[in-house]
C-alpha cells in the first residue's frame, strides 16, 4: 500500500455554537486531526444542499454540518430548517453515487469543545474507513 | 315437563308464616309424594282476613287460617284420601255453613279478578308459569300483528284510565307522549304505593311481576323510540323488588325483554329504581325528580310530563296497575274490555278492603259496582253488632263517604262528586266505633310528615289544621275553629303546588261535610260520640255486670283498677290512661265508655 489515505472533510460550523466550540478546543490545546476544514456560516440554516454538493464536487471526502442544539439556536429556529434539509439530502445523495454516510449532521454547543473533538474524530475515522470519494464515485 | 297429580298453592307465605311451606314440603317428602304433588309459593291471594290460605288444585279446595300443625292432616285427608278437612274450610259468618271450594266463597264469587288473575295462582318467580297461564301472548300479538298506532288506538278504545288515582285516559297520555318532541322517550311505572292501608300495587308486583313488564313492553312498542323504562318501587317492598328483578332477568334471558325482543327490531330495557320511602314521591313530578337522583319534590306542572318529563324527555308515567291492564286489553280486545264498567270508567279496579268489615283483603271488582255490594257482599258486612258509618277511599287524599251513600257506584266521577276520590284503591270501612274527627286528624298527622314541605299552604296549612283538630279532640275547640279549618282547607286545596297538597284537606272537608255533628259534639258538649278521643271519655265499671273476676285488674298497665275478688271493681280516673285494655279483656261487657 502506498501513502495512507487522509480524508478531506469540509465542516460547516455555525458562528454561535460549533465555531465557538472549535475555537475553545483549539485554545484548550485539545489534540485534533488536521483533516477537518472549517467553513464558518452564521447559522447551520444557511447551509443549502447545493453548498454541500459543491463541497463534494470540489473534492471533499466527507461533509459535516454542525450547529447549535435544537432549542438553543441563536436565531431561534434556524437549525429547525437544517434538521429537515440534511436527512433529505442524505437520502438523495445515494442517487448521485455518493455514500450518504459521507454527510453527517451534528449539534455541538459553544460549551462542548470536547464533544467537538469527539464528533470530528469519529467522523474522520468513519470516512477513513470508507476510503476516498473519488475511488467510490469511479466504482 | 313434569306433571303433577295435584298442586298445593301457598299464599301469605312471607311475613308471619314462614314455616308453612317448609312444613308442607317436609310432610310430602316424608310420605314420598314429591313426584305427585307440587308445592307452589304464590303471591297474595287477597283474602287477608282468612290467611294463611292453602289452595289445592285441581279440585279448588281452599283452606283458611292454616297453621303448620294442620299440615299432616291436610296431607293425609285431602292429598292422600281425597277428603275435605271440614274444620279448615271457610265458614260463612251468618249461616255458619262450611264452604270448601274457592269459587263458592262470596268473597271471591262477587269479584272479577282480571288484573289479579295470576296473583295467588302462579309462582311469581316462574316465567314458565306466567307464560303457561297466557302470559306474553299479548306482546306476541302486538309485535307480530299490530302497528304501534293500532296499539294506542286499542288502549284508547278500551277506555282505560290511570289507576293511580287521577284517572287520566291512558290512551291519550300515550298518544301525547308519542307525538311530543324529544331525543328519546321514557316510560315509568309508579310502584311507590304509600297510602296507609293500601297494598294493591305491592300484591301485583310481588304476585304477578311479569304482567307489569309485559304491559310496559307493549307500551314502549306503542309509544316508539322508548329504549328504557323504569319501575319505581318503594324500598319497603323488598319482595316486590326481588320478584321484579328476577322477572326482568328471566324475561331478558328468554328474549322477552332487552335487545331484539322476540327476534324483532324492537328493543326495550327496564330498570328498577328503589324509592327511599317518601310518600310524596308517589306524585309524578316528585317521582321523576327522585328518579333523576334529586330530592323528590314536586315541581309546577305547567308543562306536562308527556312533553318534558324524565331528563326533559317525553315520558309516560303510569301506575303499575295501569300497566298490568295493558296485556289484558290486548288479549281480550279493546271492545270486550270496554264492556266492563260504566260509561266513563271502564274495566276493573283493585281495592284494598280494610277496616271494620269481616273479610278484609285485596279485591278486584268491575267499575260501577256499588259500595254496598263491595262492603256487604264481598266484605261480609260489619262486625257483629256494629253499624257501618263511613267508607274512606283514596288514602290520605281521599274523603269519607257516609253510609247513606252506600249505593253509590264506584267510578272516578261518582267518587269525586261526593268529595272523595278513586285514588290508588285504598278502601277503609269505618263503623260506629270510629270517631270521624279522629280519622281526619289521623290522616293529617300522616301528611304533616309526608308533605315535602316545599310550599307554604301544604306545609303550614296541614300543621295548622292538625293543630285545630288536636284542639278539638282534646276538648278545647271553639265553634270559630270550624270556620278557620274550612278556610285553611280551601286555601290548601286551591293554592298548593301539587296534587298531594291540593287533596290533603279532603279528609277534613269530607268529614266536615258529612259529620259536622260529630265535630260539634266535641266542641259544644266536649263529648266524643264514638268513644275514641281519650281526653273526652271515661271508662267506668258497671255495677250490674261486674262479677269481680279480677281480669281487668290484672291486665291494667297502670294498676288503676282496684277491687276485692267477687266484689265490684273500681277505676281510679286519676290513674286511668284510657287505653281500653280493661274493656277488651272484660268477658262480661261490664266496662262502659262514656
Amino acid at each position: 500500500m502506498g501513502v495512507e489515505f487522509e480524508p478531506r472533510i469540509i465542516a460547516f460550523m455555525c458562528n454561535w455554537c460549533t465555531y465557538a466550540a472549535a475555537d475553545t478546543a483549539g485554545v484548550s490545546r485539545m489534540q485534533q486531526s488536521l483533516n477537518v476544514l472549517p467553513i464558518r456560516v452564521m447559522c447551520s440554516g444557511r447551509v443549502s444542499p447545493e453548498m454541500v454538493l459543491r463541497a463534494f464536487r470540489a473534492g471533499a471526502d466527507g461533509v459535516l454540518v454542525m450547529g447549535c442544539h435544537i432549542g438553543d439556536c441563536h436565531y431561534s429556529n434556524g437549525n429547525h430548517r437544517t434538521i429537515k434539509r440534511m436527512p433529505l439530502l442524505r437520502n438523495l445523495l445515494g442517487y448521485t453515487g455518493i455514500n450518504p454516510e459521507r454527510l453527517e449532521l451534528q449539534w455541538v454547543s459553544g460549551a462542548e469543545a470536547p464533544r467537538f473533538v469527539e464528533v470530528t474524530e469519529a467522523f474522520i475515522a468513519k470516512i477513513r474507513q470508507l476510503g476516498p470519494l473519488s475511488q467510490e464515485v469511479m466504482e | 315437563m313434569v306433571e303433577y297429580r295435584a298442586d298445593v298453592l301457598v299464599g301469605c307465605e312471607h311475613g308471619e308464616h314462614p314455616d308453612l311451606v317448609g312444613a308442607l314440603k317436609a310432610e310430602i317428602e316424608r310420605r314420598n309424594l314429591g313426584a305427585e304433588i307440587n308445592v307452589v309459593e304464590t303471591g297474595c291471594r287477597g283474602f287477608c282476613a282468612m290467611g294463611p290460605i292453602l289452595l289445592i288444585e285441581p279440585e279448588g279446595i281452599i283452606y283458611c287460617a292454616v297453621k303448620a300443625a294442620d299440615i299432616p292432616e291436610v296431607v293425609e285427608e285431602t292429598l292422600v284420601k281425597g277428603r275435605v278437612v271440614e274444620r279448615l274450610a271457610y265458614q260463612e259468618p251468618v249461616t255458619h255453613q262450611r264452604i270448601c271450594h274457592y269459587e263458592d266463597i262470596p268473597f271471591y264469587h262477587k269479584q272479577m279478578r282480571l288484573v289479579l288473575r295470576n296473583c295467588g295462582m302462579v309462582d311469581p318467580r316462574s316465567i314458565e308459569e306466567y307464560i303457561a297461564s297466557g302470559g306474553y301472548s299479548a306482546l306476541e300479538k302486538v309485535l307480530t300483528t299490530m302497528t304501534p298506532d293500532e296499539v294506542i288506538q286499542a288502549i284508547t278504545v278500551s277506555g282505560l284510565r290511570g289507576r293511580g288515582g287521577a284517572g287520566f285516559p291512558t290512551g291519550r297520555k300515550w298518544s301525547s307522549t308519542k307525538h311530543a318532541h324529544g331525543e328519546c322517550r321514557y316510560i315509568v311505572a309508579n310502584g311507590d304505593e304509600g297510602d296507609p292501608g293500601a297494598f294493591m300495587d305491592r300484591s301485583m308486583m310481588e304476585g304477578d311481576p311479569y304482567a307489569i313488564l309485559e304491559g310496559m313492553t307493549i307500551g314502549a312498542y306503542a309509544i316508539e323510540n322508548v329504549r328504557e323504562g323504569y319501575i319505581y318501587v318503594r324500598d319497603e317492598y323488598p319482595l316486590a323488588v326481588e320478584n321484579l328483578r328476577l322477572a326482568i332477568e328471566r324475561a331478558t334471558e328468554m328474549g322477552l325483554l332487552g335487545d331484539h325482543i322476540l327476534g324483532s327490531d324492537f328493543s326495550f330495557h327496564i330498570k328498577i329504581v328503589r324509592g327511599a320511602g317518601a310518600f310524596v314521591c308517589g306524585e309524578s313530578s316528585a317521582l321523576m325528580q327522585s328518579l333523576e337522583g334529586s330530592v323528590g319534590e314536586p315541581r309546577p306542572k305547567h308543562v306536562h310530563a308527556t312533553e318534558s318529563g324524565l331528563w326533559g324527555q317525553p315520558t309516560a308515567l303510569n301506575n303499575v296497575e295501569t300497566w298490568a291492564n295493558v296485556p289484558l286489553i290486548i288479549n281480550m280486545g279493546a271492545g270486550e274490555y270496554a264492556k266492563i264498567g260504566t260509561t266513563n270508567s271502564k274495566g276493573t279496579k283493585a281495592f284494598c278492603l280494610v277496616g271494620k268489615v269481616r273479610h278484609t283483603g285485596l279485591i278486584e271488582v268491575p267499575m260501577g259496582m256499588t259500595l254496598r255490594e263491595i262492603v256487604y257482599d264481598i266484605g261480609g258486612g260489619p262486625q257483629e253488632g256494629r253499624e257501618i258509618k263511613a267508607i274512606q277511599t283514596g288514602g290520605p287524599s281521599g274523603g269519607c263517604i257516609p253510609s247513606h251513600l252506600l249505593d253509590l257506584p264506584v267510578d272516578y266521577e261518582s267518587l269525586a262528586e261526593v268529595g272523595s276520590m278513586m285514588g290508588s284503591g285504598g278502601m277503609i270501612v269505618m263503623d260506629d266505633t270510629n270517631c270521624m274527627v279522629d280519622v281526619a286528624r289521623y290522616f293529617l298527622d300522616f301528611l304533616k310528615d309526608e308533605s315535602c314541605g316545599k310550599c307554604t299552604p301544604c306545609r303550614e296549612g296541614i300543621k295548622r289544621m292538625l293543630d285545630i283538630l288536636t284542639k278539638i279532640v282534646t276538648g278545647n275547640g271553639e265553634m270559630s275553629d270550624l270556620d278557620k279549618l274550612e278556610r285553611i282547607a280551601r286555601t290548601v286545596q286551591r293554592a298548593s303546588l301539587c296534587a298531594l297538597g291540593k287533596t290533603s284537606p279532603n279528609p277534613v272537608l269530607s268529614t266536615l261535610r258529612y259529620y259536622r255533628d260529630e265535630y260539634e259534639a266535641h266542641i259544644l258538649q266536649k263529648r266524643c260520640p264514638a268513644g275514641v278521643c281519650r281526653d273526652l271519655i271515661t271508662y267506668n265499671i258497671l255495677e250490674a255486670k261486674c262479677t269481680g273476676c279480677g281480669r281487668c285488674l290484672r291486665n291494667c298497665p297502670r294498676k288503676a283498677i282496684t277491687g276485692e275478688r267477687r266484689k265490684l271493681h273500681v277505676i281510679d280516673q286519676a290513674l286511668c290512661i284510657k287505653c281500653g285494655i280493661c274493656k277488651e279483656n272484660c268477658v262480661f261487657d261490664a266496662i262502659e265508655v262514656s
Partner: protein
Amino acid sequence: MSITLTIDGQSVQAEEGQTVLEVAKRAGVTIPTLCYHPALEPLGACRLCVVEVIQRGRSQIVTSCTMPAEPGMEVRTSTPAVMESRRTVLELLLSRCPNVPVIQQLAAQYGVTEPPFEADDPNEKCILCGLCVRACNDLVGAHVLNFSDRGISRVIGPAFMEKTRDCIGCGACTIVCPTGAIEIVLEKEALYAAKPLGPASAIYVPFLQAVPRVPVIDTDACIRFRQQARTNGELADACGVCQLLCEARAIDYTQQDEELDIEVGAVVVATGFADFDPYLAPQYSFGKSPNIITGIEFERLSNSGGPTEGEILTAEGVPPKSVAILHCVGSRDKHTNKYCSRVCCMYALKQAHLVRDKTGADVFEFYMDIRAPGKSYEEFYERVQEEGVHFIRGKGAEVTVQPDGKLLVKGEDADLSRVVAVSVDMVILGTGMTAQPDAAEVSHLFGIGCGNEGFFTEAHPKLRPVETNTDGVYLAGTCQGPRDVPDTVAHANAAAAEVLALLTKGEVVISPATAEVNRDKCVGCGDCIPVCPYTAIARVDGKAQVNAALCKGCGTCVATCPSGAIEALHFTDEQIVAQIEGVLKWV
C-alpha cells in the same frame, strides 16, 4: 315573538317565555312575592303570588312566578279566591314567623294584624322560601345550603346541619333572604377553612404588597358577574355589596378589559415564573390533605394579610405541633425538572425559622444538600440549625395521609444510611420555579429564544445576560431562569439600564451581515417569509424585501430561496464556495 294577554282587564304584550309575574310587573300590576328573585329560577314555594288564570274556558289558581304567559290568557290578580288564598298564606306565615317585619307588613296589607296561631318559636325568621338555597347552588355554585327533612320538619342548612368548609362566606344567601333569617358570622378558623389559603371572596387585594394596591374582582366567582353571564347580560342586579359599601364609589361593574396599542422603543419581558405544580409529584399526596401545602401557600398563611392574619394554623384551626419541610419538590429530579431552582433551600430555611419562631413546633427539613451561596446565606443556615430544626439529609420520598389525619413523611437519611419516617401535622412542599405555561407563546411573540425548560434565552449566558437576540427586547427576573429577590432586582436594574442606554443613544447599530434580495431574480414565491425567525422579510410589490434593521443575517432564507435570489452579505454563496474550493485546493 310577542303575545297578547289580559291582566285585570287590561290588554298587555309579552315576550314568549316570560312568566305572568314578569308581564304583570312590567304592566304595573303589583303582585306580592316572597320566594321570587329575578336572578333566580322561580320555585313557586311561598304561594303568595297566586293569581286566577282563565284559559280555554278553565279557571285555575296558579302561582304567577312559575306560570308562563300564553296568548289569549286572562289573568285576574285580585278575585275573592285569590285574595282569600293570599290572606290565608300570610296568616300561616305570620303564625310561623310572628316577628318578621316584612311578613307583618305584607299581612297587614291583607288585613291580618295578629297571628291566628301560636308560633312554635317566636324568633323563627325562615319561611323556607328557598331563595338562599337557589342562590347558593345556582348562582354561587357553592352547594352549601339545601333543604333537609320534609313536611313540618323541613329546614334549610348545610349538610347534616354541620359547619362546612364549603361555605365561602360570600353572603349571597343573606342578600336574597327576604326575612333576614341568615346572618354571616365571621370566624377566623371558618374563614381559613373556607378557602384554604386562597382569596376568601370574589373581591380581594391580590396581596399586601400588590402594586397598585387595589382590590380586583374575580368575575368567575362574583355573584353579579355570574348572574350577568347566566342571563346573557340581561340582568346585573345581584349582590352589589362591594359597590354599596365602597365610600369612594370606586367600583364600576361596567368596566371592561381593554387592549391598548402603545408604541415603544424597547420592551422588558418580566413575565416571572410559575410555581411547580405539586400534583406532578404525586408521591407527596398534595391535595389529599389540606395540611399539605406548597411553599407559596405557606407564605400566604404566614402573611399578616393572609386568611389567619399571619398565625400559622393547620386546617383544623390549631397551631401545628410538628412540621416537615421537603426540599427539591419537582427540582433536581429526572422525572420532573432536572435543574436546581436556586431559591428553595433559602426559603425553606426561612420558613423553618418562621415556624419555630411563631409556633415552636418541631421542624424536620428533608434535603439533599443545602445550597446557600450568597451574602449571609450560609450564616443564616447555621442560625436555623442552632434554632433546633432537625435536618435530615435525604430527599423526602413520600408523604401519606394517615387515618387520623396526621401526615407520615418518609425519606432516607443518607447520614445514618437508613430510612426514616416522621409523623407531622403539616407538610410544606418546597416547590421549585418553573417557566410560565405560556412561555413558548410569549417567546414567539417577541422572537426570543426559549430553552428546553421554558425559560427565555438571553443573548449570551455570561456577557449579555439581559439582552435577547431580538434587539430592543430585554429580560428581567425569573422568566430567564430561577433566581432569588436580590438577583432579580439586579437583573431588572441591568435590563432598565440597557433600555436607558438604548433610548438615550437615539440610534441603533446593526450588523452589516444581512440578507439582500436580488429583485431581478426573485419570483415572489414567498418561501423565505415564514422561515425568517425575525419577521424581517415582507413582500413588497410582489417581491421579497428584507428589512435590514430587523435582519440578523442568519442566512436561513438564503438557503431556502429556490431561485437563488437572496444573498447573505459577507456570506454569499460565491464566498463560501470559494472558501471550500480554496481549502480543498491546498490540502
